[in-house]
């Protein structure tokens, strides 16, 4: 763990060397989801509500997903950029070091410019919570924290899975975008608005539903239920990460260096 923080520290310092570029990129990262949010706002301005969900309820969902996405992009970026490590054969170096591969890949890259995106989603989160008085209680705050935490776990799991495929394909596969970018676009709205098969897939296979829709029902008092389920359901995200790590292990064992 201390190794991880050392990696974090070094990367932060190296990225802050180029201050202007860092700042510009962060601002840009602030504006990308801002446009998406603008679209959401204008849609609500025109239609008033979304199948019984009010504007602030949806923005809460939006904020949770974007918060988890930006956090995992910041900290698990190493897996996202993993294909270059395999293609160049640099992964060999990681293997000979006496530390776990996961920590090393995780530490190989951090994307701190995502702070812009993070800031944007935090603002949205605060704004929507301020307008949803039913969320103001201690167990619900904890649930909210679990939602974000497990959201990060899911995105990280997807990054790891996509990276694992690189062991076989060498190249990065664009199809993984369906689950990262696509998952983000989709999960920023409550899952009920989609067709049944989509909802099922993203609840039981890739458990976005566990970090947004199901706990949201509890947060917003839409469904009678004890706080226990509301708090436990988000851990589906953690449950998703475990098999991903397992697959990663198998992948590492199958790794054959490109030798260049």
């Amino acid at each position, binding site marked *: 763990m201390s190794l991880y923080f050392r990696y974090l520290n070094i990367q932060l310092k190296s990225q802050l060397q180029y201050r202007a*570029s860092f700042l*510009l*990129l962060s*601002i*840009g990262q602030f*504006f*990308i989801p801002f*446009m*998406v949010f*603008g*679209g959401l706002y*204008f*849609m609500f*301005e*025109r*239609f*008033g*509500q*979304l*199948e*019984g969900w009010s504007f602030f309820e949806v923005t809460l969902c939006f904020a949770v997903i974007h918060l988890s996405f930006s956090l995992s992009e910041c900290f698990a970026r190493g897996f996202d950029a993993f294909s270059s490590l395999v293609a160049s054969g640099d992964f060999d170096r990681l293997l000979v070091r006496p530390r776990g591969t996961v920590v090393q890949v995780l530490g190989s890259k951090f994307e701190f410019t995502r702070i812009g995106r993070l800031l944007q989603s935090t603002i949205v989160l605060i704004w929507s919570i301020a307008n949803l008085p039913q969320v103001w209680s201690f167990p619900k705050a904890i649930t909210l924290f679990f939602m974000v935490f497990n959201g990060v776990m899911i995105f990280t799991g997807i990054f790891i899975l996509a990276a694992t495929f690189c062991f076989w394909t060498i190249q990065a*596969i*664009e*199809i993984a*975008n*369906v689950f990262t970018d*696509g998952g983000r*676009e*989709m999960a920023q*709205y409550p899952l009920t*608005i*989609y*067709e049944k098969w*989509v909802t099922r897939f993203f609840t039981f296979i890739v458990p976005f539903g566990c970090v947004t829709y199901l706990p949201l029902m509890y947060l917003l008092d839409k469904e009678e239920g004890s706080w226990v389920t509301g708090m436990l359901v988000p851990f589906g995200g953690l449950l998703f990460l475990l098999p991903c790590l397992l697959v990663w292990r198998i992948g590492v064992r199958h790794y054959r260096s490109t030798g260049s």
Partner: protein
Amino acid sequence: MRAYVSIWRLRFINGMQYRAAALAGMATQLFFGFVFIMIFAAFYRSGGGDSTAFPLQDLITYVWLQQIFLSLIMLWIRDNEIFAMVTSGNIAYELCRPMGLYPFWFSKLLAQRVAGAVLRCFPITTVVFLLPEPYGLSAPPSWTALLLFVVSLLLGLILVVAISMLIYISVFWTMSPTGSMLMISVAGEFLAGMVIPVPLMPEWLQRITYALPFRWTTDFPFRVYSGHIPQQEALIGIGVQFGWIAALAAFGMWLMRKALRNVVVQGG
């Protein structure tokens, strides 16, 4: 002219090489199309507000056309080679070539977009046409609408290249493409109706988009296709497209001349 055509052909063949990537890209685009349509459809289902401004069927067509012609008309597609050329100093070689730099880059960018689109658009179009109601793409109401659509789409393509040329030229001054590129493409994408369709925007924002060139690259051709913009208006719109292209190309060429007059070739 022959030189430009052969550059065009070279880039085109080059772009056609990446077939596996195209396949993965198509799956991604189909998925995104589905998600967007489901979101919009949910908004329409919840009623309220006034949805008469833009019928759902037109909107679905709009979303699919966006996905089909994504690489043709998206502003953020960029050629990192050109950026690298300016910052690394290889621009010197480009200047030695016996042809104008503006038309040279222009044809290069044009070819790139067309190659990317040709590979992807036919399979996606077929799939999307065969989709069951209500997700399928509907045919244009008349042959004239289709013809006008093709013309306006091609003009939109030229227009988007003209806009992106300005970004490339700006690198001569800024040296770093990321900042200006990101800002313009994010704002441009929104104003082109790629996040939410222009007819669904509030009145005041629509007025802004009408005054800017971005909307003529995507929003206009797609609405001509579905017949949401009547033919009379479409003809006027095509005229406006011509006007923007002429203005932006002239501005770009002037800017390029100015940039090249005091270009600093980066060493290395």
